C-alpha cells in the first residue's frame, strides 16, 4: 500500500506523460480482469425524506423541498418504466430516514423490485447486521454506502445532525453488510468534501481491511464529485478532470479486481473516455428525483444531485458497442438467499 506522501506525489504530479502512463496501465489491467464488458445499472429514488442534516445534500433535513415517498403502486410504475429500458441491475435509494422508510417499507419495495429486476442493491440509511441479513434474505444482493469523507473533523462539520453524524457507525456499515451475507458492497468518498489524498488513502485502507476480512464479497468503489445542486456550490476543493481520472486509474492499479462505478453525475464526454480506464459499472438513463421516471410534476423537486449525462439506456448501449464494449444488462440470476 502507498503511504500518504506517495499518494500526494502522484495526485500532485501534473506531468501529462505520467498521467498517460497511469492510464495505459489502468486500461490494461481493466481489460485483463474485466474484459471488454461494461455492466449497466440504474438508480430509482423511492423517497427523499431524510432525518440527517448534511450541508452538501439536496435531501438534507432542513432543505425546504417537496418530500415524496413512493407508494407500492407508484413503485410498480417507476420500476416498470425502468425495466422497459432493459436495465436488470437496480439501485434503490432513499434519503436516510429511519421513520419514513423503515425496514418494512424497504422490504415492500424489494418484493416489488424482484418482479422487475434480477439484481437489487440498496443505498439507504445504515443498519445493523441483523437488519441487513433480513434484507439479504428478502433478495437484496448489494449495499452501497459511502463514508463521504474519512476526515473526522470535516465529517463533523458537514454532518450536523441525525444518525449520519455518527462517524463510527457509518464506518462499520460495510462490515455489517458483509457479515449479513451481502454479495456486493460498494464504498466511496465524495470528492471535493475534504483533502483528496487523505480520503483516498483511508478509503484504500478501509477497502483492504474489508477484502482481508470478508474475501467473499465483491467490492466496488465510487468517486462522486461534489457538484452544484440547482446552482449551489458545496465543494471545498475542486477535483478537476485530470485529478478525477488519476483517482480512477490509481484505484484500478492498486485494486485490479475491484469494480469501479461511474454515475451520470459526470458528463458524457468524460464518461465516454473514462470507460476504458478502469470503470466497470455505469449507470444509464438515470433520474435522481423521486418518481422521476414516470410520475409527473417532478420539475419542482430537488434532485439529490444534478445529472450531467442525460443519454438514455439505449444510447449508452449503442455507444458501448461503437467503442467495442459489450454492454452487460444481466449480471446476476436471482437465487434464493434463504438458508435451507
Amino acid at each position, binding site marked *: 500500500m502507498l503511504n500518504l506522501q506517495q499518494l500526494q506525489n502522484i495526485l500532485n504530479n501534473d506531468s501529462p506523460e505520467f498521467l498517460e502512463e497511469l492510464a495505459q496501465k489502468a486500461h490494461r489491467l481493466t*481489460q*485483463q*480482469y*474485466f*474484459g*471488454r*464488458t461494461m455492466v449497466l445499472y440504474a438508480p430509482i429514488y423511492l423517497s427523499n425524506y431524510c432525518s440527517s442534516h448534511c450541508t452538501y445534500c439536496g435531501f438534507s433535513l432542513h432543505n425546504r423541498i417537496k418530500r415524496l415517498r413512493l407508494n407500492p403502486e407508484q413503485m410498480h410504475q417507476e420500476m416498470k418504466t425502468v425495466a422497459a429500458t*432493459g436495465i*436488470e441491475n437496480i439501485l434503490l435509494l432513499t434519503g436516510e430516514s429511519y421513520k419514513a422508510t423503515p425496514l418494512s417499507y424497504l422490504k415492500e419495495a424489494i418484493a416489488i423490485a424482484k418482479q422487475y429486476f*434480477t439484481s437489487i442493491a440498496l443505498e439507504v440509511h445504515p443498519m445493523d447486521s441483523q437488519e441487513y441479513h433480513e434484507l439479504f434474505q428478502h433478495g437484496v444482493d448489494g449495499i452501497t454506502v459511502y463514508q463521504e469523507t474519512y476526515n473526522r473533523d470535516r465529517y463533523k462539520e458537514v454532518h450536523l445532525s441525525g444518525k449520519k453524524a455518527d462517524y463510527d457507525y457509518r464506518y462499520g456499515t460495510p462490515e455489517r453488510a458483509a457479515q449479513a451475507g451481502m*454479495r456486493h458492497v460498494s464504498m466511496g468518498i465524495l470528492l471535493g468534501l475534504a483533502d483528496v489524498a487523505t480520503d483516498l488513502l483511508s478509503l484504500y485502507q478501509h477497502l483492504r481491511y474489508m*477484502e482481508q476480512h470478508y*474475501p*467473499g*464479497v*465483491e*467490492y466496488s468503489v465510487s468517486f462522486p464529485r461534489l457538484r452544484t445542486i440547482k446552482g449551489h456550490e458545496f465543494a471545498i476543493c475542486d477535483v478537476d478532470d485530470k485529478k478525477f481520472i488519476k483517482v480512477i486509474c490509481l484505484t484500478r492499479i492498486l485494486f485490479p*479486481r*475491484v469494480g469501479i462505478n461511474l454515475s451520470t453525475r459526470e458528463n458524457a464526454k468524460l464518461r465516454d473516455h473514462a470507460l476504458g480506464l478502469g470503470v466497470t459499472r455505469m449507470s444509464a438513463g438515470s433520474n435522481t428525483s423521486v418518481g422521476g421516471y414516470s410520475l409527473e410534476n417532478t420539475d419542482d423537486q430537488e434532485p439529490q444531485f444534478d445529472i450531467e449525462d442525460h443519454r438514455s439506456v439505449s444510447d449508452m*448501449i449503442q455507444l458501448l*458497442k461503437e467503442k*467495442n*464494449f*459489450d*454492454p*452487460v*444488462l*444481466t*449480471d*446476476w*440470476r436471482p*437465487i*434464493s438467499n434463504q*438458508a*435451507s
Partner: protein
Amino acid sequence: MQTTETKHIEKTQDTPLVIGGKSFTNRFLLGTGKFKNKQDLADSIEACGTQIVTVALRRIDLEHHEENILEYIPKNVTLLTNTSGARNAQEAVRIAHLARESGCGNWIKIEVINDSKYLLPDNNETIKATEILSKEGFMVLPYMSPDLYAARELVKAGAATVMPLGSLIGSNQGIKAKEFIKILIEEIRDVPIIVDAGIGSPSQAAEAMEMGADAVLANTAVAMAGHPAMIAKAFAMAVEAGRLGYLSKLPAKKDIASASSPLTGFLYE
C-alpha cells in the same frame, strides 16, 4: 487390405475425449466471457471448432433485452453452464437448478469462489456441490485448485472431470501450478483432467497437453486478443499438437547431457 495412407492416419490418430459417456474429437474448450461483442464469440467458436463452451448463468439474458448469448452458440456445441457468483456449495447447487430449469441442460461447471481478490476456487465447497449435483443427475465438471486429495474426493463425489487451474484466472500466466497438475495427471485416471484458467497463449496450451492433460479451456486470452477467431483457431491447433506430442511419447528431457564416454563401460569389457 489397408493402404499406406490409412496406416499413416491410424498411427497419428487420437482417441476421442470422453466425458460422461459423450465423445468429443476437439480437446479445446472455450469460455465465453469478456468478448467485446457476441459476433466475435461466434466467430471464435467456429474458427476453433470447439465442441464444449462454458457460459456463466448470471450472464445469460433470459429476458431477451439484448442479444442472448445462447443464440450465438451452435446447437451441436455442448453447453457447459457455470456457477459463477456462487460463494458456497448451496449457492452453486441453486444456480445449477436454475440453469436446468432455464433450459440450459444439465452440464454444469462448478465454480465456487469465495475470494473476490484472487478468485481462487474453494475445493471443500466444490466437493460438496459436486456430490449433491452428481447425485441429482447433473454432469458435473468442477473447477478446482490442483490438490490431489481434493481431486480424489471430487472423483469419489461423482465428478465427470476435474478442472485444475493452471494459474490465477484471467492472469495469462500459463501453467504455474505445473508440478501439482502433473501429479493429478499421474494419479487421477478415472476421469479426464482439463486444465482451466491462466492459459494465456497457444504455446502454454500445448505445454499442458504435452504434459498429458486431456483438454484445455481458455477464455481471456481469446476474448482479449486483437483477432479472437484467429487465436481461437491457434489454440485448437496447439491443443491438438500438444496432444499428439504427448501421445508420441516424447523423449524425456534430460537435466544433463548424455555422457559420450560411459563411466561403467569397463565392467562389460
